[in-house]
């Protein structure tokens, strides 16, 4: 089995929205038609995005932490949006687990968006069909691109490499290793959707330092002493090397 997915490292994401703009730029030129962008420079701009970065504040001032949270379709292993679709436009690919919408079949009833607990699907204002992250399916298999670029546009754009892409079912893959070794988790596990995309938690590097480790208890050369410097005649541990 192959299940392509993204692993998003919340420890690294700086919330720059590069993945958002890169996603929009690539997918607005996609085969399913452009992504709506209503009133982009006027009052109440709105439009279709496959990917959004949200910001959350954890804790209470002054002990707060800001978490930037990129959010897109999680390509669930058991996607609730697929069985509810009346036309079969919403489907999950057998070969790589990507959840897609057939733009020719979708009737725009929005029923799939009711079934998705993550709000990953958006009805396009212009085309009146449901749209969602395709994991850049028109990019990752494109053999005219150099192999290093056969990745989703968001992954290519991320300046901090917070986004990893690969097959989560392959235990040797970069994404599976990251999930396994860095505590990758799924969103809203309570619905049993088994999202393929995982998030890596915020991690803090901390070590315990005891007070005696900050001051050298044993200081034969009398270095790093507080001023004034000790008298030359003062005893030392080692008379010979004293100054």
């Amino acid at each position, binding site marked *: 089995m192959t299940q392509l997915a993204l692993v998003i490292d919340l420890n690294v994401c700086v919330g720059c929205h590069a993945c958002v703009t890169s996603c929009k730029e690539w997918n607005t030129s996609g085969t399913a038609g452009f992504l709506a962008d209503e009133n982009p420079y006027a009052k109440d701009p709105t439009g279709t995005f496959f990917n959004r970065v949200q910001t959350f504040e954890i804790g209470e001032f002054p002990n707060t932490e800001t978490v930037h949270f990129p959010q897109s379709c999680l390509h669930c292993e058991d996607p609730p949006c697929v069985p509810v679709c009346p036309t079969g436009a919403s489907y999950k690919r057998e070969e790589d687990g990507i959840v897609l919408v057939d733009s020719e079949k979708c009737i725009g009833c929005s029923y799939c968006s009711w079934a998705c607990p993550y709000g990953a699907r958006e009805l396009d204002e212009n085309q009146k069909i449901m749209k969602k992250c395709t994991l850049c399916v028109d990019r990752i298999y494109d053999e005219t691109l150099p192999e290093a670029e056969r990745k989703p546009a968001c992954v290519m754009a991320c300046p901090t490499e917070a986004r990893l892409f690969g097959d989560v079912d392959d235990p040797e893959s970069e994404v599976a290793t990251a999930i396994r070794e860095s505590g990758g988790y799924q969103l809203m596990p309570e619905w049993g959707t088994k999202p393929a995309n995982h998030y890596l*938690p915020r991690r803090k590097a901390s070590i315990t330092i005891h007070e005696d480790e900050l001051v050298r208890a044993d200081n034969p050369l009398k270095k790093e002493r507080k001023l004034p410097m000790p008298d030359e005649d003062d005893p030392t541990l080692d008379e010979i090397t004293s100054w």
Partner: protein
Amino acid sequence: MHPAFSVIFLTTLIGAGQGLFLALYTGQLFSVFKLLPAQDPVNFYAYGGLLVLVLLVAGLFSSFFHLGRPERAWRSAAMWRTSWLSREVIVLPALMGTVAAWGLIHFLGWNPVLLTFRAGVEIDLSLLVGAIATLICFALFLCTGMIYACIKMLQEWATPLTVVNYTLFGAASGFMLATGFAAWQGTGLVNFYGGSAVVLTTLVFLTRAASLYRNSRLKHKSTLETAIGIRHAKIQQKAQGAMGGSFNTRHFFHGASPAKYRSIKWYFLVLVFPLPLLLVILGMTMQISGLLWAAFLVQYLGLLMERWFFFAQANHPQNLYYQTV
């Protein structure tokens, strides 16, 4: 959820249509067993069937406004194995067809007796077609209710009470309409239909109150903690990724002020239950058919508000991601 008028009209109109058919067929069935007087096949059953069809077609028509691409609506019959919406799309026209056949049989008088029992009970063709239509009618109630009840993420809807309420609301409003229709036809069925409407309205009051009580005590499974996967008691959203609105902010929030939201609940509780009950009982005792029609219209208006509230009350877990701009 944002209440869509297309769906509000769809569910209330077909509900009333189904209920009216059940009322008409119950009348026919009872008359076969000599429990109620037989009615004129053309004026009562055929025109009644036509009224049912008008309601069903109006509901179907309104449902098209819910679709982004109505010209592709025919595709929605494809996934009946998994999707309740697809099943409804098949069952609704099936009901229309069977009700049309049932009405036509009455209208043309093409109603051969299929079976005769010893007690003089005759099973004719319309009774058989009507029985099939009744089954389809209940199947449609099940489909309509399950469209909402099967989505476990919308916990306010994910209960068998949803299906029960859709069925009983449809039946109550249909019998209410049948009361007015029977009075207009000058038949002796006014008290039978009126009495049934009173019983059904009382029943659905109990089941709707039960679902309101359930929802008021509902504990949502998803929280901001599970939504972003960070275990902390204090999480606050600071940005939702876009300054303007999006499909996510428009489609999943009812957008009404808290005062309006609360008032709609009380409006529907008054308009659907006590007021039509009063009107229909007064209409029956004073024999004023205008009051009987008014009972249906008031209840229908209330049902529109009930459906609005049904949608508005459902809290989608995706809203956790859209708490602040």
